[in-house]
């Protein structure tokens, strides 16, 4: 789709989604689907473990849902609002874990951070479009951090076959990124 984070092209749709979710919280699913990957990518880059990334992502979306009735449409992208919640959650997290007491984070992430998160999110979405066997191998290797040997054992293929699937999957992703598909 090629729209950047601050693009105005999708705003009327987004506004409808927000208003629908304000009326009926079950409609929050659509906002979640649209924004999960960038928020997760933004957080995952800044914490040390998958467990922390999941906890904080969960916190961000729960806070967003709880505060949605107070969200006022002023033309600011919903993503920017979510990133601000994420930045605050990260700052709190750093303070609690005392990983870096001197660290101060801005209210909202700089534009380039948000764009980096969007790029990563686009890659994650492309993974979902790979053929099933390639997608499975990538998920096991990169989400579940399994070795080639463990993946091979689990899916009942040889280690050579797993390496080949992995190679083809990454080739496919690179081609899609180069195509300018996203």
């Amino acid at each position, binding site marked *: 789709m090629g729209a950047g984070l601050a693009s105005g092209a999708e705003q009327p749709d987004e506004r409808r989604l927000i208003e629908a979710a304000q009326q*009926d919280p*079950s409609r929050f699913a659509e906002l979640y689907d649209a924004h999960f990957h960038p928020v997760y990518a933004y957080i995952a880059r800044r914490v040390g473990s998958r467990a922390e990334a999941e906890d904080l992502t969960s916190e961000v979306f729960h806070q967003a849902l709880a505060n949605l009735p107070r969200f006022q449409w002023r033309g600011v992208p919903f993503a920017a609002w979510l990133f601000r919640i994420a930045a605050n959650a990260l700052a709190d997290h750093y303070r609690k874990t005392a990983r870096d007491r001197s660290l101060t984070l801005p209210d909202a992430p700089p534009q380039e951070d948000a764009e980096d998160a969007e790029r990563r999110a686009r890659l994650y979405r492309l993974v979902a479009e790979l053929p099933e066997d390639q997608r499975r191998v990538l998920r096991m290797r990169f*989400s579940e951090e399994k070795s080639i040997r463990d993946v091979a054992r689990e899916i009942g293929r040889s280690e050579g076959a797993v390496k080949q699937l992995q190679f083809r999957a990454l080739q496919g992703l690179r081609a899609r990124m180069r195509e300018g598909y996203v």
Partner: protein
Amino acid sequence: MSERERFDELEAALAAVFSGRDVPGDVGDEPRDLALLAGYLLGLPREEFRASLKADLVRPGAPAPEEKREPEAAEVTPQTVIPYVVVPRAEQLMDFVREAFGATEVLRSAGSGGFHGEVRIGGTQLMMGGRPGMSWPESLATLHLYVPDVDATYRRALDAGAASLYAPADQFYGDREAGIRDPFGNRWFIGTHKKGPSHVPEGMRSVTPFFLLRGASEWMELVKQAFGAEEIGRVGLPEGGVRYARMRIGDSILEMGEAHGEHAASTPAMLYVIVEDVDAAYTRAVAGGAQAVEAPTLQPYGARVGHVKDSRGNDWYLATPVRR
């Protein structure tokens, strides 16, 4: 260079990426490119996490985090199949079953996602949820209820706003039975068993889900294949079809029969089924002909849950509680 060598070269480059080192200088251009791209995948989220957070956020009746309350462990006794009724006015339904049937509240929880409640009627668990203006469909139930005094319960139900389907009458199978439709649209067959030591016939519970269907026999086959149900009794109709049948899943009974005349077909219902191994149960359900809706994921309320639909649109939530 052979293909195999290129795959191995990529693997060597990935090992460097995984451990935060630079890709070695002797790695060829393509494997190097792919390994660098793979570096961006190190933060690839777990699908299971993405799905379970979504389910948590939009679960019908999901309580807001601060209002969440779990039932005390001691309040819950094992029950394989628990009917779940979804109606916009779920909270009022809970009041109704308490008033009309003397239900005991186990859990009442209202949050931004709606209402979720659990009751016991004569020891049998029943769940309900929903919210006014909800965008998801209703799941109404047809339920067979056994009470000590059907005439008194029938009167209380009508006083609480139910409509009569048929007044209490003695039936040839040893029950005195009445029928009502509650103000929310659920159908209740209310009986008192007269031919035994208890008002509940042996092997039955106080509340049993009942399915009135056209072509019940075909549905029964699916339920056997998909959910491991065991047929424990069937009375046929002269013209073919099932007059009445019972099947058992775990420690719970389902009742069913051919829809006819005033006994119109049941609308799709929802069942929450406790299983030992949800992944195995889900796989069997789908292999047995149920339609996959959502693969098992860990839910924040402490269960790993998968969702399938049967051929008649009934929703089956297969759940394995997780000890915390």
